[in-house]
C-alpha cells in the first residue's frame, strides 16, 4: 500500500471522527433543557402534562432532588378464567402502557433528576427482590412506588396501586341497579396517572404532615364518608388525604378551641349560625395566624341559611338568605339579549375568577371554568372591623339576580327586569393581622391569619372532578404549601365515529382495490411511454 493511500485512509478516519463529534455535539446541544422543546400536535393536547407538573419537574431538576419511579408490574400467570378476567388483564396492560408513557414524559422534563426502574421478576430476580424489600412491596398486584430524596435528606416513598389509585374503573355490580344498564365486564373510565403521581411526588417533598380539621356540628346533612352520593364530600376528603393531609374531625362540644396543630379548619355547608363561643374560638384561631375555609350553600329550608352571625361580625362579612341566579346562554340563539331564564340551569353559576389572588391566579390564567350551585350573595358587613383586608375571589357575571320565593315557596327562576340585574360576589378572601404576641416586640410575630369564604357547592362529589382544583388550591395554600397548588391535567373528551357497514365497504373498495389498481395502471402507463420513446 502506498503512502498516498495510507494518508487518504487516515484522512478519512479523522474526518469521520470529527463528523461524529459534530453529530454528538449537535444532539447534546439540542437536548439541553433550555433548548429542547416538545410540540404536541394532538387535539386537546392530550399528550401534554399540566403546566404545574412541568414547573414542578423543572424545579426538582434545579434543586437536584432525586426522584425515582419504581414499577412493579408482575406478568400475568395462566389464562383468564372468564371474559371479566380477560378484560381486567386488558385494562392492566393499557394502564401499564399509559404509565410508562407518562413517566417517559416526566423523564424528558425532569432530566437527570428523574429515574424510572422497571422490574421483571422473571428475568431479574435479585434486583426485583432487593427493590421489593426496600419498598415493602408484597408482589401481589401492579404497583408504582414514587420515591423522592432532597439533597442531604432521607429518601421518602409512597406506594400506589395501578388499578386502585391510578385509574377509575367501572366495576359490574357496583352500579345503582335503577340506573343505566350494567356493564358485564369492568371498564376503564379514566386514567388518573398524572394527577395521582404528581400529587404523590409533591406530598413527598413536603416535610411533615399538615392536619386539616373538619368542623362538625354545624351541618345537619353533611356526609364526608360516601364517595358516590352527589351531595356528599367523600371524594374531597379522600383527595385531601391523597395530597398528604391528615384529615381529622373537630367538635366544639368536646374541645373549646381549635387545636394548635391545625394547619387549617374546614367548615363545609354550615346550616346553623355559629354560637358566640364557637365563633370566637374560630376567630381566635385566625387571629393567631390560623387558616379557615368556609363553604356556605343555599338551602330552601326555613332557618337553614346562616348569614355569618357572630363570626361574620368579627371578620366583617355577611351572606344573603336568597340564592343567586344568572341568565344562561340561549343555545338556539332565539334572542339577541344576554340569555334565558326560567330554567333551573340559572342556579349554576359560571364564575369570574380573580387573577390577583394566589389561590385563583393560576385558574384564571389557565382559563379553567368554575361553576358553583346554590350560591348566596356575599358582601362586606357595614362597619367591618379594621386590621383585615378583604379581596374578592369569585364573582358572577353582570346578569345575576336574587331568586325570591315564588308561590310554591321555592325560589323563582324567572329574571327580574334588566335594570335590576347586577353582579354578585360569591367568593372572598380575608387576611387578618395577627394579635400582638404576648412576649412583646422581641418575640417573632405570628403569620397573618387567612380566611377563604366560598358561597355555593362545588367540591362535593358531583363537582369535585371538574371544579375541585379551587378547593385543593385553597387547602394547599392555607397549609402554606404553595408548591402543591395545582391544576389538574386537561380531561380529554373522546369523540366517537358512528360508521355504517356501507361506509366501511366503500373504504375497502377505495383502499384495497381502487388505490393499488391506480398505481398499477399508472406504472404500466409510464413503462409503456418509456418503451415507446
Amino acid at each position, binding site marked *: 500500500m502506498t503512502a*498516498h*493511500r495510507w494518508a*487518504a*485512509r487516515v484522512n*478519512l478516519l479523522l*474526518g*469521520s471522527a470529527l*463528523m461524529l463529534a*459534530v*453529530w454528538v455535539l*449537535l*444532539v447534546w*446541544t*439540542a*437536548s439541553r433543557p433550555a*433548548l*429542547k*422543546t*416538545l*410540540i404536541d*400536535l*394532538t*387535539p*386537546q393536547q*392530550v*399528550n401534554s402534562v399540566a403546566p404545574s407538573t412541568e414547573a414542578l419537574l423543572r424545579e426538582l431538576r434545579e434543586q437536584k432532588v432525586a426522584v425515582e419511579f419504581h414499577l412493579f408490574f408482575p406478568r400475568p400467570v395462566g389464562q383468564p378464567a372468564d371474559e371479566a378476567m380477560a378484560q381486567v388483564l386488558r385494562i392492566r396492560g393499557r394502564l401499564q402502557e399509559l404509565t410508562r*408513557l407518562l413517566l*417517559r414524559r416526566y423523564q*424528558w422534563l425532569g*432530566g*437527570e433528576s428523574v*429515574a*424510572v*426502574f422497571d422490574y421483571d421478576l422473571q428475568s431479574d430476580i435479585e*434486583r426485583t427482590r432487593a427493590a421489593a424489600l426496600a419498598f415493602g412491596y408484597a408482589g401481589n398486584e401492579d404497583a408504582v412506588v414514587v420515591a423522592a430524596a432532597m439533597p442531604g435528606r432521607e429518601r421518602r416513598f409512597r406506594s400506589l396501586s395501578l388499578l386502585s389509585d391510578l385509574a377509575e374503573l367501572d366495576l359490574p355490580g357496583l352500579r345503582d341497579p335503577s340506573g343505566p344498564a350494567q356493564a358485564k365486564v369492568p371498564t376503564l373510565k379514566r386514567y388518573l396517572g398524572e394527577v395521582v403521581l404528581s400529587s404523590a411526588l409533591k406530598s413527598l417533598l413536603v416535610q411533615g404532615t399538615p392536619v386539616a380539621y373538619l368542623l362538625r356540628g354545624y351541618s345537619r346533612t353533611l356526609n364526608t364518608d360516601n364517595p358516590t352520593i352527589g351531595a356528599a364530600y367523600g371524594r374531597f376528603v379522600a383527595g385531601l388525604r391523597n395530597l398528604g393531609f391528615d384529615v381529622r374531625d373537630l367538635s366544639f362540644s368536646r374541645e373549646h378551641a381549635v387545636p394548635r396543630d391545625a394547619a387549617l379548619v374546614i367548615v363545609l355547608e354550615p346550616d346553623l349560625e355559629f354560637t358566640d363561643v364557637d365563633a370566637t374560638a374560630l376567630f381566635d384561631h385566625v387571629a393567631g395566624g390560623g387558616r379557615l375555609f368556609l363553604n356556605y350553600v343555599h338551602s330552601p329550608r326555613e332557618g337553614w341559611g346562616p348569614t355569618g352571625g357572630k363570626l361574620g361580625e368579627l371578620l366583617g362579612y355577611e351572606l344573603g338568605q336568597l340564592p343567586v341566579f344568572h341568565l344562561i346562554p340561549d343555545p338556539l340563539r332565539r334572542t339577541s339579549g344576554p340569555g334565558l331564564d326560567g330554567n333551573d340551569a340559572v342556579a349554576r353559576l359560571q364564575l369570574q375568577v380573580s387573577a390577583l389572588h394566589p389561590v385563583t391566579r393560576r385558574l384564571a390564567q389557565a382559563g379553567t371554568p368554575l361553576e358553583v350551585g346554590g350560591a348566596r350573595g356575599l358582601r362586606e358587613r357595614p362597619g367591618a372591623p379594621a386590621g383585615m383586608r378583604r379581596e374578592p375571589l369569585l364573582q358572577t357575571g353582570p346578569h345575576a339576580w336574587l331568586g325570591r320565593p315564588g308561590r310554591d315557596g321555592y325560589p323563582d327562576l324567572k329574571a327580574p327586569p334588566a335594570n335590576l340585574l347586577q353582579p354578585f360576589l360569591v367568593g372572598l378572601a380575608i387576611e387578618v393581622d395577627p394579635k400582638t404576641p404576648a412576649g412583646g416586640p422581641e418575640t417573632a410575630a405570628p403569620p397573618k391569619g387567612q380566611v377563604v369564604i366560598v358561597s355555593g357547592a362545588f367540591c362535593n362529589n358531583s363537582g369535585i372532578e371538574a371544579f375541585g382544583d379551587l378547593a385543593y388550591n385553597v387547602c394547599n395554600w392555607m397549609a402554606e404549601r404553595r408548591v402543591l397548588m395545582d391544576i389538574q391535567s386537561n380531561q380529554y373528551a*373522546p*369523540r*366517537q*365515529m*358512528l*360508521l355504517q*357497514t356501507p*361506509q*366501511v365497504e*366503500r*373504504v*375497502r373498495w*377505495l*383502499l*384495497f*382495490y381502487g*388505490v*393499488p389498481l391506480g*398505481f*398499477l395502471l*399508472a*406504472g404500466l402507463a*409510464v*413503462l409503456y411511454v*418509456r418503451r415507446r420513446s
Partner: protein
Amino acid sequence: MRGACTVFQKELLSYFVSPVSWIVAVVFYLWRGYELSSMAHYAMLVRADPDLFASATYTLPSTTAMVLLVPALLTMRCFAEERRTGSIELLATAPVRDGEVVLGKWAAATVFYALLWLPSCLLLHVLEYGPFLATDLSFGPVFAAYLGMFLLSAMLLAFGCFASSLTDNVLLAAMLAFLFDFGLVSLPAQVRANLGELAQHYYVRELLDKLDVGRNFDDWFARGLIDTSQVAFYAGGVLFFLFLCTASVASRRVA
C-alpha cells in the same frame, strides 16, 4: 449546487421509470389498503375515536416494513450499480464534486420516498368525506408521524447511500443497509435490558433514548409529539452518513 440538481433530476427520473418502484408502490398500497379497511371495520365495531384513528394508521406493520425495507431497496443501486457497470467513471470525470453527486442521489431517493408516502396522507383526507368515514380526522398527529417517519427514513437512506458506496455488489449493499436498519430498531432495547441499573444513568439513558428509533417513533412521533432534540438527532445522522458516503466515494477515487 448545479451539479447536485442535475444528478437529483436524473436519479429521480430513473426512480419514476423503474418497474421496481411501481411494484413497491402497488404491493405497499395493497397491503396498506387491507390494513386500513380492517381498521375501519374495527373502528365501526368499537366506535373508535377519530382523533386516534388517523395517527394509529402510522403504527401498522406496513409502516414498519416500509421504513425498514424500502430505504435499503431504493439506495442499494446508488453507487454499487454505477461501479459494477463502470458508469462511475463517467461521474468521476464529470464536472461535479463528489459531495454534489452524493447529495443529489440521496435527495432523489428521499424525495421519491416521501412521494411514495404522500398518497397515504391524501387518502386519509379523502376518507374524511361523506361516502367514507364522514368525520373530522385530526391531522396534527398525522403530520408529526409523517415527519418522524420521514426523518428516520432520511437517515436510513443516507446510510443506504453510504452502504452502496462501500461495495460494487448491489445485494451486499442492500444487506448492509438492512442489517443497519434492523440493528438500529432492535439493538437499543436489548442493550437497555442487559445494562440493568446502568441504563438509568442519565447520559447512558439519553444515548439509548436517542438511538432507540423504533420506540421514539411509537412513543413520540406516532402520538403527535415532536421532540426537537430527536429532530436534531436525525438531521445530524443524515449529515454524518452523507459525509461518510462522500468520503468513501472520494477514497475510492484515490484508490
